[in-house]
């Protein structure tokens, strides 16, 4: 048989109906729902007297506009409206919901894996572009719009064209202080924010194989920032070990059987991709974005670039606009950029290992004067674990605010925003204009880099800090 990629295998396993000249009708195994992109879909069902076909394959939580200081006091009437609408919709249609008082609540892309809902081989959708996160488990997971949310609720299927496949092959050892976040930022910086458009990415190579599930999630999470709707990693022992014992993962013998099946999904030796990119891990430095797309970044020991360096007129214009928005002068060393805010959180970097990496950096130190620093765990479970392991106390002692779980300052739909003109080191995934608040200047970085920026009030090369610590 012709060797196949995991992407082709999962796809073929889910085709409900196929006809020449039409997209395939694809079955959806797991549909995750949150409060912002679902109300209009439920309303649509109601208007037409339709039902949710498989509430048992649907799971809802609230994350985007929940307050993270006191989650039960929602002052924003309209946000409250969306949260109560979700409660009502889940009750009416019989959908399981991790609500604000649930110990399972959290960012939808953090709790899916945590609860073991996310599993290899599944097709997973959610009305959110960072659904790509779940690909870390060898699932085909992608974001959809509200009309598609309605379509999946009603039919448990979607009409989809088979995507092209893009292999991103990362090999070699990452340098000290260089993390999964830097890998994905470097990929986007080198190959552009639309390199993955029309493709599903499979991340391969020993660098990826040696990563924990949480690191793989960080990489897959930002596939969408590279233009790809989905990014995934073939499942292996690391994947299975992570899933064993999770609440919704198969149990006992069923688990062993599942592992056998999951193993068979991995990309076959010799399978072909439509496109392949090779990355040498040793060439990657800690990255900092200086502009208003995730592709506009530089190594921490680099400088803010000159627009003239760029090849096309469109790029030069984009860079000029971005620098203007960011208030940055070409030639400025990245380490001279001062920050007034630090945000550690979001579905990219708010898991326990992210908080550990950040806590190591801040332990026994203090947040620089004039810097406001926030840690927002990705889920209530992460929060609890961090408190039990003493991480929370390390942050609090250093002067960080320690919050409840949610999306928070990643998109500032709740009261957490960055004021106009101020700079924020953020572990999230988007640095678009106004993303963290009107006029806010976001710099995307890894948790280590964000923590270090909080202590120094500007960006620092964490590789140097780690050396100093040794001597």
């Amino acid at each position, binding site marked *: 048989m012709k060797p196949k990629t995991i992407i082709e295998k999962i796809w073929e396993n889910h085709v409900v109906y196929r006809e020449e000249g039409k997209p395939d009708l694809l079955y959806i195994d797991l549909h995750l729902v949150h409060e*912002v*992109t679902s109300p209009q879909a439920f309303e649509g069902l109601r208007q037409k007297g339709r039902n949710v076909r498989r509430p048992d394959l649907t799971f809802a939580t609230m994350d985007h506009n929940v307050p993270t200081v006191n989650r039960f006091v929602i002052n924003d009437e309209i946000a409250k409206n969306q949260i109560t609408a979700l409660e009502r919709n889940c009750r009416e249609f019989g959908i399981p919901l991790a609500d604000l008082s649930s110990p399972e609540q959290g960012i939808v892309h953090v709790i899916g894996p945590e609860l073991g809902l996310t599993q290899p081989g599944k097709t997973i959708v959610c009305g959110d572009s960072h659904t790509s996160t779940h690909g870390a488990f060898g699932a085909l997971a992608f974001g959809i719009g509200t009309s598609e949310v309605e379509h999946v609720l009603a039919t448990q299927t979607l009409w989809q064209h088979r995507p092209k496949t893009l292999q991103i092959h990362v090999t070699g050892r990452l340098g000290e202080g260089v993390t999964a976040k830097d890998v994905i930022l470097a990929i986007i910086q080198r190959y552009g924010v639309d390199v993955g458009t029309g493709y599903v990415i499979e991340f391969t190579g020993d660098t990826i194989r040696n990563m924990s599930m949480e690191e793989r999630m960080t990489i897959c999470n930002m596939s969408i920032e590279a233009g790809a709707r989905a990014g995934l990693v073939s499942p292996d022992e690391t994947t299975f070990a992570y899933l064993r014992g999770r609440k919704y993962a198969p149990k006992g013998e*069923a688990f062993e059987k599942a592992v056998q099946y999951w193993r068979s999904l991995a990309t076959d030796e010799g399978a072909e991709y439509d496109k392949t990119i090779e990355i040498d891990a040793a060439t990657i430095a800690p990255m900092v974005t200086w502009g208003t797309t995730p592709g506009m970044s530089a190594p921490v020991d680099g400088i803010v670039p000159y627009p003239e360096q760029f090849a096309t007129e469109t790029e030069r214009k984009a860079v000029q606009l971005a620098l203007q928005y960011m208030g940055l002068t070409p030639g400025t060393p990245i380490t001279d950029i001062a920050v007034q805010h630090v945000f550690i959180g979001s579905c990219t970097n708010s898991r326990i290992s992210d908080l550990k990496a950040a806590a190591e950096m801040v332990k026994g130190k203090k947040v620089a004067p004039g810097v406001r620093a926030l840690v927002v765990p990705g889920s209530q479970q992460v929060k609890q674990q961090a408190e039990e392991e003493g991480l929370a106390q390390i942050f609090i002692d250093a002067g960080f605010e320690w919050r409840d779980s949610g999306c928070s300052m990643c998109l500032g739909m709740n009261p957490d925003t960055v004021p106009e003109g101020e700079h924020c080191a953020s572990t999230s995934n988007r640095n678009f204009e106004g993303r963290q608040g009107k006029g806010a200047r976001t710099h995307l970085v890894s948790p280590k880099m964000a923590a270090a920026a909080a202590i120094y009030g500007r960006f620092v090369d964490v590789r140097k800090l780690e050396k100093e610590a040794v001597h």
Partner: protein
Amino acid sequence: MQFTIHTGKVAGLDRANIDTDQIIPKQFLKRIERTGFGKFLFYDWRYLADGTPNPTFELNRPENEGATILVANENFGCGSSREHAPWALADYGFRAVIAPSFADIFYNNCLKNGLLPIRLDKQDVEYLLKESKRADYELTIFLEEQRVYDEAGFARTFAIDPYRKQLLLKGWDEIDLTFMYEPYIVEYEKKQANLT
């Protein structure tokens, strides 16, 4: 929503990577209806801090008043999957968006809302961006023939998935259509249940 043939005024927005956060900023995502988003379209670019229209923003220029076709540069609609973006564009009055490339999710979301996304070559887009500066510049989009043309002789064909094209031409509800495949879905579910 149905789309067959449309003639309308063209507005140009010569920027690349216009993301859905710009098309409809997050503070307007909290509504639970599909309508009424037009007045918030491009909010942070369109209005000054005091809420008055920003005279330098392209869509606020008099020559672009009443435009129904938007032309922009590469990777239009990247970022968040929010369908509020095409809702806002359609609610504002746009029937089509032309760009050299679109982000995948946004492209799909447009088709579901009768807003036609059209990919044209970069140099054609540059031509349209230039022409759009004229107040009376109009384009016609003829979906059946997949053609876009102006009075001066510019005419290009564009690609669109034949299935999506049919849905748009007929204005069909996709869920109703999928319900016709119900027996296949049931069969698939049975097969899966037997596997596990």
